[in-house]
């Protein structure tokens, strides 16, 4: 699509694209188009983000006062459990892969669809089945065991719908397995001619690595949850100390998945950041192979550190030593990425559009979150800060400051490609700023609270901690505004947003070479790749290949 240089032609929406190709609810619910499935996921996970967010608001309201005047302790247990379960299993884990990944990966590899479109649709239905059970658990009062379901509390002592929720998570897990399977086969077998592994966008590498974790780790939590449900339902004795069972075994099996799960969550986000940083620095990414291989390294190393969640659970000193050492090692590939992104920006032509604002926020906040992880990996220090707000702050820095920020950046970056429309830039920048301020105000005080000894999962706290808690709750209300605004303006942009055109960001990558929104079959002709990725700055800032 060449445009004349002298006159600027306003871009027009393509006549036929994947959104208007077919109408009616059946064409959406029975679609095999990865782009439509991505949107189905987008709607579902946004719903769960709101559910999780609602629980978060209630938590922060409770913690405004030290004496817990709002909720009883039993109810408070349900609040933080439901917050965690909904956010982790029904929002974070599917977030980037199932929405952005599903949409963009086939485009990035030049394919017409993922390898198994029917399985893709099935994975959404399985997710919805899980969502059904999760909502059922919510309506039945919610569970109160902590998102970690430690036994024997969860198997023998609580009277909340643990099995119902367990089944829901089981289904959500299978959904993620099938997504991962689809991505792996697609990347191996459906790349366009000329698209070697060394030319793949880093977003693809990141999702590929995350998919490896999905397929290798999720089955273990599946069997763990099955055993948990059997134990709770039939008292068979596998984790019951009265019958000789070992509660720590549950923790081993649980964390074998749940630690790599955090890498499932963050790796796709890191992939987004790689794409954004290079585009908005107008510069080829620094150290492409290092970033690509570090994703794989994180996926592999992520599997051998799980017991750092169990340092004070009663594991042997020697295994604690081993896991501590390995946990330090796993930080290295992440650090490599941070250095490389920074080096990419150095002497680049940086512009501060909204996606870049989120990417910059990510780099800073993820670094803080990651470094505090090292504090926790140190055995002696962990004894002091384990199960305190320090941990809560750490994982919110990486999960929200990292992952959600990257997700927001990715949504803004690819929104024009998905919808054909631009979001309102001024409002978006304002929201990004509000999110940044709100986030830090919410979670930075929590590092201090944790260090001072405030335990997590407590409905009450000593009065001397109130000031920091009030700051945190104030931050949360600001953060909420920061997340609500995009909800509004994204929807607004669907009708009133400026038409984006094929490549509003002048970015490289196959997805930008097709229309916005793309046609149902993605490309009118199978693209052939002849250039290296991120060939910015080669022809007066215009990507080669146009």
């Amino acid at each position, binding site marked *: 699509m060449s445009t004349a240089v002298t006159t600027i032609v306003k871009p027009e929406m393509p006549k036929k694209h994947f959104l208007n190709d077919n109408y009616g609810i059946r064409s959406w619910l029975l679609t095999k188009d990865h782009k439509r499935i991505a949107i189905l996921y987008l709607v579902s996970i946004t719903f769960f983000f709101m559910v999780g967010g609602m629980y978060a608001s209630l938590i922060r309201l409770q913690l405004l006062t030290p004496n817990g005047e709002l909720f009883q302790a039993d109810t408070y247990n349900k609040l933080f459990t439901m917050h965690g379960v909904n956010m982790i299993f029904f929002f974070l884990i599917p977030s980037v892969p199932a929405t952005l990944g599903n949409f963009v990966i086939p485009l990035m590899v030049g394919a017409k669809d993922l390898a198994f479109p029917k399985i893709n649709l099935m994975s959404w239905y399985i997710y919805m089945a899980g969502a059904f059970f999760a909502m059922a658990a919510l309506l039945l009062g919610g569970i109160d065991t902590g998102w970690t379901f430690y036994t024997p509390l969860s198997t023998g002592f609580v009277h909340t719908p643990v099995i119902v929720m367990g089944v829901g998570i089981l289904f959500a897990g299978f959904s993620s397995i099938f997504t991962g399977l689809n991505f792996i086969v697609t990347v191996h077998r459906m790349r366009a001619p000329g698209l070697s592994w060394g030319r793949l966008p880093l977003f693809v590498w990141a999702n590929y690595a995350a998919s490896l974790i999905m397929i290798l780790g999720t089955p273990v939590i599946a069997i763990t949850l099955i*055993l948990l449900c059997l134990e709770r339902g039939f008292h068979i004795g596998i984790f019951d100390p009265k019958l000789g069972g070992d509660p720590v075994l549950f923790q081993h099996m649980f964390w074998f998945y749940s630690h790599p799960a955090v890498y499932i969550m963050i790796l796709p986000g890191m992939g987004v950041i790689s794409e954004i940083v290079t585009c908005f620095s107008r510069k080829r990414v620094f150290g492409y192979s290092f970033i690509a291989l570090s994703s794989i390294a994180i996926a592999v190393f992520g599997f051998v550190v799980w017991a750092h969640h169990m340092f004070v659970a009663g594991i042997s000193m020697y295994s604690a030593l081993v896991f501590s050492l390995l946990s330090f090692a796993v930080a290295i590939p992440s650090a490599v990425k941070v250095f490389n992104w920074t080096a990419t920006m150095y002497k680049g032509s940086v512009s501060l559009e909204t996606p870049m604002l989120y990417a910059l926020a990510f780099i800073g906040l993820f670094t803080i979150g990651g470094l505090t992880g090292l504090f926790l990996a140190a055995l002696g220090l962990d004894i002091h800060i384990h199960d305190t707000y320090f941990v809560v702050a750490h994982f919110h820095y990486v999960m929200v400051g990292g992952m959600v920020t990257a997700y927001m950046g990715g949504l803004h970056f690819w929104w024009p490609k998905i919808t054909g429309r631009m979001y309102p830039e001024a409002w978006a920048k304002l929201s990004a700023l509000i999110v940044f301020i709100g986030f830090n105000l919410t979670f930075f005080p929590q590092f201090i609270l944790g260090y001072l000894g405030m335990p997590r999962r407590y409905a009450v706290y000593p009065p001397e901690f109130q000031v920091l808690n009030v700051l945190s709750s104030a931050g949360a209300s600001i953060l909420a505004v920061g997340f609500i605004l995009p909800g509004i303006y994204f929807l607004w942009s669907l009708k009133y947003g400026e038409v984006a055109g094929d490549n509003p960001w002048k970015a490289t990558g196959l997805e930008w070479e097709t229309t916005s929104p793309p046609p149902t079959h993605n490309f009118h002709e199978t693209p052939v790749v002849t250039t290296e990725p991120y060939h910015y700055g080669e022809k007066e800032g215009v990507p080669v290949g146009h």
Partner: protein
Amino acid sequence: MVTSETSTTEHHPALVHHFDDMEQQKEASTFGMWVFLLTEIMMFGGLFAAYLIYRLKFYPAFVAGSTSISVSWGFANTLVLLGSSFTMAMAVWAAQNRSRKQQVMWLIFTMILGAAFLGVKAKEYYDKYEECHIPGSFIGKPFNATGGPGCEKGNIAEEMQERARKTNEEIEREGKAKGWDEKKIADKKVAVPSDAYAVQTAKRTEIFFSFYFAMTGLHAFHMVIGLGLLSWLTLRASRGEFDGQYFTPMELGGLYWHFVDIVWIFLFPLLYLISRHSGAH
């Protein structure tokens, strides 16, 4: 081989539009099945890991539990399942090289063997039910390995003591026949477990049986799904859908079935053959 994207050459009816040709479709599908089997390895693997840890922790109880399940049936079932892997491999070969009649025949053999396996498992489960060895207390007969009312057949505590006594009697006999002195005979004899120890170990077997039912149950569940898959394949084969050009569903069905067989290959020694040499049937 069909050349790439443009649709001037005619498509095999089974080619889906997002693949360039049948070769790519076959490779992608096969790889996809292997990735899926990888997830199954990890799922069963989780159970195996937990099993190993408890076996180390409660070895005598695991021995006692293993002794109380029938090694003959386990052995027979292993042969049955291996046989079904053979017939499945033949079915896949027939899909490429032989008529639909042969394909259907091999598939039906496989299903018969699979059903036989499940039949034997049902019998074994029923035996355990009669002996009150089903863990927990949800199915009428609560777990009882110490011979409570209605559970006399499954008195593991007594069996342990009985076995030790029998072993000692045999050693006596052997010793007398071979002219060993008293000390040698006494050294070879095994300790007969005290009542307290036998009862405690018998109670611990509930964990063994939890794993027995969890592992064989999960396996049986996969076999049932496998039988469903085989029925569907039989239907497609009878319609003549498979030939040398296109037999991928058979190949994938075969991969799944062989995987289920491999799980059993490990289950048999792990569950049925724990310390059998200490004298049980």
